């Protein structure tokens, strides 16, 4: 019994160590990569990450922000359609030119924090930090920004070094 416990504890410690070592590279990239200010045009996410983000987006975001992040503007005035829109709220674009223009000059951290603290409406913070980062990667992909070799980190201090530019 004691042997089993000891073996398990050792294995767990090893696993933690390995995950920290490996995970640091896989998930947030090397420290050197984030030592300097970068732009979203510099390939700050990976294609795999964007694909994960797309899955989250389809489950949690697409109802309001629609397929390509174009959002739902104030509904077109269609004759015969009531102005009553409760439960069908306006949603801003989260990808594309208008989106990048809105966030131009601000950091990825500011956007990440906004997503985490306000979205989805009614259940802000209900995605994990990594899932929010993945969704953000997908929004960058939808905005035609290039993918790179390293994932967008779920670390606010590192996201603070990434600037959003049109």
């Amino acid at each position, binding site marked *: 019994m004691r042997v089993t416990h000891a073996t398990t504890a050792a294995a767990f410690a090893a696993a933690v160590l390995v995950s920290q070592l490996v995970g640091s590279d896989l998930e947030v990239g090397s420290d050197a990569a984030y030592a300097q200010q970068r732009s979203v045009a510099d390939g700050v996410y990976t294609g795999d990450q964007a694909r994960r983000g797309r899955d989250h987006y*389809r*489950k*949690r975001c*697409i*109802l309001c922000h*629609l*397929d390509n992040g174009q959002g739902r503007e*104030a509904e077109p*005035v*269609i*004759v*015969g*359609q*009531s*102005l*009553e829109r*409760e*439960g069908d709220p306006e949603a801003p674009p989260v990808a594309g030119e208008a989106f990048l223009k809105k966030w131009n000059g601000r950091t990825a951290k500011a956007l990440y924090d906004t997503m985490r603290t306000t979205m*989805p*409406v*009614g*259940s802000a913070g*209900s995605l994990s930090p990594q899932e929010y980062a993945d969704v953000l990667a997908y929004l960058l992909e939808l905005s035609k920004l290039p993918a790179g070799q390293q994932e967008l980190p779920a670390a606010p201090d590192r996201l603070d070094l990434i600037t959003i530019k049109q």
Partner: protein
Amino acid sequence: MSTRRLLTSVITLVACGWAAYVVSVSVAAQQRNELAGMARLSGTVTAPQAFKAAQVYVRNVDKNILYMVFTSGGQFRALALFPGNYEVSVKAKGLESDVQTLALRAGENAKLSVAMHAGQGVDPAPQANVTFARYSEIYPQGPGLQVIEQGCMRCHDENFIPARPASEDVWRARLGHMTGAELNVRDSRAYNEGALAGRVQWFPFSTKDKEEFIAYVAKHYGTDAKPRFVRAEQEVPLDEAALGKAMFMEYYLPIDPPGTGSSSPEFAKRGRGIRWGQDVRFDPEGNVWLTDRGYPHRLVKLNPRTGQQKDYAYPDGASNGNHDLTIDRFGIVWAPEHMGLKPDGAKRILGFNPKTEKWEYQAPADPDNVIRNSVKWMQSMALDSKSNLYVGWIMGGALSKYERATGKVKVYPISERGAVPYGVIADRNDNIWMAMWNSGKLVKFDSINEQWTEFAPLTFPSHIRRLNVDAQNNIWAAIWNQGRRPGKLAKLDQTTGRFTEYSVPLWTAQPYDVAPDADGNIWFADSPTPDRVALISKFNPRTQTFAFYPKPQFQADSPKIQVTREGAIWFSPRGSRNQPAVSVLYPDMDKITTLAAFYQYGPPGNPWPSPPVSQTARR
């Protein structure tokens, strides 16, 4: 027949005739007095082709009031016109006139001839990217159609889905919204969310149904589809002779100057930058009160005798949600808080005293947190004979009772599963009735014994928004969109417990609110479709006939109507984006004795005399 019997008959006839004459003279005298300072206008409308019931718009540009009358045999007339400057134009199907201007003096009886020419006429201008098609073209037969017709159209009508083409992913998300896919991780944010969840919905909606629905909408209303609407293939049946007696008036709300009020930086975006009329009620002095749901929220007091309006902002930022109002026998205007800019904020029952012009009552509406959902808001309300106030929680599925004498609030969860109470009314026995938006049931709350009873109309499940009670204590409800089934009026006879339904002979009918007049007719607001005008309509239960009155604003639906003792129908053209207003239909303009609006028996507008209420009932 004996001489004596003949003599009796003659005397009776003469007496009846004399009485009728006296009444008509009396009405005419009142009309002369109240309307003495007003003007009249009549005239002839011509056109290069035949037309029927052309709409004559007589706009007082000084007061921003519109009168709209209809031609009958090419003739028209309007009365009770405020002296001032006017613009007159006429429209019919495919015909319209140029605008003529004229000035009317007090007491003047002016004449006018108007010529129409080919033009857009009364129909709205075509919209880019919006096409119309037959129902069978938009909804081809196939698996999934039944789900749409029985599950979706019950609330959404036949135009909602084809007007919103999207990818399969989006359709899945929409279905997830309706089935409450997110509700295991958060509270519901809107009362439509989860309406098709498995344990609360009334339509049998299987997993197979869901997949067939997704396949159907992805195929027919996918990303590549254009928004489409079902063409209204039936013309609204119009009785030109009846319309020739009718007159609409619209008292337009002043639009806020740029940068202020609804167009201020604070509210311009969230409030859509517009004023937004909702419900109307009459006070004891004949004024009409309106809830303006735009931001900032306002109560609007209109004196119809002068056209003067006064606004009163709701308390605490005027943004915590508003919807209905009611006025009690002491003149207090009650207005519960609705969704607002803080949907999950605490909601109150507000009471405004017009004498002090202050919000004197601000009672927490769920003080004991009986409704556990974090998002909850109120909507409609009713007053019992003791002036106690009952408010439905449309988002929350409950009923709050505000006891007038003590100011205490008690909350009663509604018996029906997934309850979404819309309209609320009180019957003659102080039972509180509610229309279930989610199922189409009527629910009765016995306020004495605190018991619930549910009633399912013959058409079930369905979608009912508003209901009302007539002088015989029958409950009337308007069965809303039915897709391919016509809209209906349903009557519940409380003495027998039997429902009777009357189909509106207009396939596009979307009856909303219902209200009886003093003659026993049932009036209802009928929402428009994209190519069928908004209507105020009348049902005569004795002859079982319907009459339709096209409203001045084609697209402006009206959720609530109120009927005066003279039979005038007041409403707000809620759907109006550019011309929010307080409006009225006089079905017979010759019966107008005053422009003021009075209930037959005073506030709150019951169709029976109210018993005396001790002043102690008022806190």
